[in-house]
């Protein structure tokens, strides 16, 4: 049978199953195959915080969405064209997102009476006509896998567990994905369990072969590679990019990196990654708590290391007092907050942008801290470097606001030329024979000297008590305190002169509405702006990397448009800052669902704002 091959320009696939079904791994592998093939891509893993939620239940559903295309794309996609549902819970949880006409691949083996009842199905949707709007491929994936592995010396349970590889093989056939990478991956992963390795590879191939021979699929799809700039590429998640950015900051500053961290979702992977790079002189310290983690990082900074701590919102709350100490002692410190849904424990695996005001103001006293936010998974690399640059140059703690979506999402990344990365000058103080002023200041940056222990002649004492301007001795003098409060603020404000101005994208030059975002919403906002422009409506877009201080030209940009729309995954935190600082009545658009924005939804909002002109 010759099968038809259909050309597509983009596809959105969602793999969904029980959290024990290996959906994240399946998605990761399909992503790697897709990256290797040369498509542009963007991913959205979505999983419960529970390691093993009760099997077959709605809270236990884990999914991985991948958007890939023959052109450059910005988001993991709003709605899947293909849903792979490994059990009834996965079907029920994901069906509302599925547009009419989408492909639905269902593992019928799991659609037992018991599993159906668990999620409240009274009938079997595969057998009644409730799925008639979709192109349903009802396949007994588990039993086909077990049959394919009948000759292997493995347990039935192990054979059943390979069903995700069968599904991956089938999808790989369906979309013409290269398979070498996955086979090599399985060989590495199960190197110590050869029988399991062979079985998984066999399941993967069986899935591929099934696609090729079955009549259930008469068409396969091709998505041509995207045009990319020449260069060496890899796929990267936000957390890995942050870790690499920190290693790079160490290399480019000559400072040893010291990470103090306490495990917390969704930031722990940065600790895991950095702990593997000791040969760069990176020291990682898993502390007894969040407070000790930042304390040790600050102690290391006092000693001349690049002190770093990584956490999420609840951890920032605990670290606040030490961040204040870093402000008072004016020592470099990089604080990474991978934001998750709050308040309190909130939804640990779900994304949010609601820590902006905590990063800005969550300390006692006047304690200004620069804030930097990456816009995409690969941009986390540059954001980490930029945070380290500001921290070292201005002797200040700096907060990096990543989020759960950037942390676990991935995209292709063109590797930078290492030699062209910015260098960071530590500029450690040495004795010059004069009277040492630990709180004397560089006239341009207002930074104080970084005099590390071991430097002869510069012995001095620092601490959280107010210091006399210059000498750093304890001072309760009222005028001195006022001076010091203003100096610390002026130092941070002055960084505005040392960062890129806010760039506005307005190709037609006719836009009257500006969409202004920050951090991880860049992809969704940009995709929405494209749609609006495609529909013939001019709209301008700008995206903030620096939240404190804001770029020097921001007031001018805000005043250049009739309306400014600020979409945020919080209740309007950037909007509050902009209104308070610039007296511009921006339009705040907010959704706080633990998920990234959808491009279609934002496009509608932008249209409405333009129409209301």
């Amino acid at each position, binding site marked *: 049978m010759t099968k038809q091959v259909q050309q597509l320009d983009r596809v959105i696939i969602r793999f969904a199953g029980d959290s024990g079904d290996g959906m994240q791994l399946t998605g990761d592998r399909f992503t790697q195959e897709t990256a290797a093939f040369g498509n542009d891509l963007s991913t959205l893993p979505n999983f419960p915080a529970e390691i093993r939620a009760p099997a077959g239940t709605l809270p236990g559903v884990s999914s991985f969405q991948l958007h890939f295309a023959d052109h450059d794309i910005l988001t993991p996609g709003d709605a899947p064209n293909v849903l792979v549902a490994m059990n009834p819970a996965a079907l029920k949880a994901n069906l509302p997102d599925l547009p009419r006409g989408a492909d639905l691949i269902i593992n019928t083996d799991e659609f037992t009476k018991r599993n159906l009842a668990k999620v409240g199905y009274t009938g079997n949707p595969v057998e009644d006509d409730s799925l008639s709007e979709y192109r349903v491929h009802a396949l007994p994936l588990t039993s086909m896998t077990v049959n394919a592995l009948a000759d292997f010396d493995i347990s039935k349970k192990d054979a059943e567990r390979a069903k995700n590889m069968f599904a991956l093989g089938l999808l790989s056939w369906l979309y013409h994905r290269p398979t070498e990478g996955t086979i090599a991956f399985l060989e590495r992963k199960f190197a110590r369990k050869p029988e399991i390795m062979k079985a998984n590879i066999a399941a993967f191939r069986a899935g591929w072969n099934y696609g090729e021979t079955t009549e259930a699929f008469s068409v396969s799809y091709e998505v041509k590679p995207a045009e990319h700039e020449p260069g060496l590429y890899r796929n990267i998640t936000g957390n890995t990019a942050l870790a690499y950015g920190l290693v790079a900051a160490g290399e480019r500053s000559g400072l040893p990196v*010291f990470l103090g961290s306490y495990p917390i979702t969704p930031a722990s992977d940065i600790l895991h990654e950095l702990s593997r790079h000791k040969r760069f002189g990176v020291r990682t310290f898993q502390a007894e708590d969040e407070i000790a983690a930042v304390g040790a990082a600050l102690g290391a900074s006092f000693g001349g290391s690049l002190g770093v701590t990584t956490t999420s919102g609840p951890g920032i709350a605990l670290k606040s007092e030490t961040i204040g100490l870093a402000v008072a002692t004016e020592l470099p410190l990089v604080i990474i907050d991978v934001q998750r849904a709050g308040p309190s424990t909130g939804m640990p695996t779900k994304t949010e942008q609601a820590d902006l005001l905590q990063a800005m103001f969550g300390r006692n006293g006047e304690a200004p801290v620069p804030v930097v936010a990456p816009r995409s998974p690969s941009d986390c690399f540059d954001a980490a470097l930029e945070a380290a640059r500001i921290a070292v140059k201005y002797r200040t703690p700096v907060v990096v606001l990543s989020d759960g979506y950037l942390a676990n999402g991935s995209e292709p990344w063109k590797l930078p030329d290492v030699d062209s990365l910015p260098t960071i000058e530590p500029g450690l103080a040495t004795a010059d024979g004069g009277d040492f002023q630990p709180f004397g200041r560089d006239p341009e940056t207002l930074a104080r000297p970084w005099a590390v222990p071991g430097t002869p002649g510069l012995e001095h004492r620092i601490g959280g008590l107010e210091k006399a301007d210059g000498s750093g001795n304890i001072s309760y003098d009222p005028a001195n305190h006022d001076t010091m409060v203003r100096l610390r603020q002026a130092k941070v404000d002055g960084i505005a002169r040392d960062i890129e101005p806010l760039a506005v994208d307005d190709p037609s030059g006719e836009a009257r509405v500006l969409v202004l975002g920050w951090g991880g919403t860049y992809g969704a906002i940009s995709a929405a702006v494209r749609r609006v422009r495609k529909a013939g409506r001019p709209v301008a877009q700008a995206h903030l990397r620096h939240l404190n201080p804001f770029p020097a030209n921001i007031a001018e940009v805000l005043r250049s448009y009739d309306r400014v729309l600020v979409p945020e995954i919080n209740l309007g935190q950037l909007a509050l800052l902009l209104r308070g600082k610039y007296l511009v009545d921006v339009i705040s658009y907010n959704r706080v669902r633990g998920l990234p924005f959808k491009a279609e939804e934002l496009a509608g909002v932008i249209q409405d704002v333009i129409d209301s002109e």
Partner: protein
Amino acid sequence: MSENGVNGANGVNGNGLGALALVPKADQKQTLKDFKTDQEVRWCPGCGDYAILAAVQSFLPELGLRRENIVFVSGIGCSSRFPYYMNTYGFHSIHGRAPAIATGLAVSRPDLSVWVVTGDGDALSIGGNHLIHALRRNVNLKILLFNNRIYGLTKGQYSPTSEIGKITKSTPMGSLDTPFNPISLAIGAEATFVARTIDSDRKHLQSVLREAAQHKGTALVEIYQNCNIFNDGAFEPLKDPQVRDDITIRLEHGQPVVFGKDRQKGLRRSPSGGFEVVNVADVDPSDLVVHDAHNPDPSQAFALSRLDSPSFEHTPIGIFRNVQRASYDELLRAQVEEAVEREGKGDLAALLASGDTWRVD
């Protein structure tokens, strides 16, 4: 040091270097004056902290370390003002967190002699978690815990070492909670060096500091310190010439534990597993407990720490425990060195290109 020293984790032994082996030595002989700052000391007149400060300042020249390679880190409280008066590097940090901050410093800088100055509230209440973890990790830190059994800087509330029933501003009808015994706590937290001394006994204090300074890993030195404003006379029996010799047990490694004006009292194992006080003349000398601070088994040191009582019937001072175990910072350095040795120094371009890559031409 002990022949029975315990090796570090993963079979990695200590490299045999002492605590100060990597700290550069001063070129010239130092004196007490070298360690004084120009800052006015702001403790209350008569505070025990003055005696401790003077003892430390006059002891440090003995170590002969470069001043710039010594760091004092403190938390918050009266004692935590200490770094301002030491002409070394110093960090007056936040309440309870000094062991954490000092850990980051010591782990990243083996060429420093790092001292933590803390109090009973700072170390045992708000900072209790950091203290126990510093002790179990055995980071190269010397922790001086000034214990005055009261909150001084906040003007007189009871502390976690105050005796039960303590009448203070916050406990007008008497405190209800059982106090910590810092020595017992430290031994329970896997500390490798645990000692107690008294602010007013400079000779003893300095002898303990001497051993602590040379100890590789975390040393905890509890210093009984008088707060003459809010808890005056808390340790008076140990200072009163009339009674102190009768009730102070001066622990000396390798020596029988005997005390009393005429060294007439000693300790014997009691059938219950603890110790009982006996008249030396009444027992076979071989039944007397001999102090072994180097014993890897902490049971005896712990039992000695339990001899304390609020009534000061008998109070041991000196070094309870002093055993060898690889320090955390030393083990971490060894891992870094091993990683470099095994895979070579890091190459950033290679790191970025690790994993699956593809080239676009």
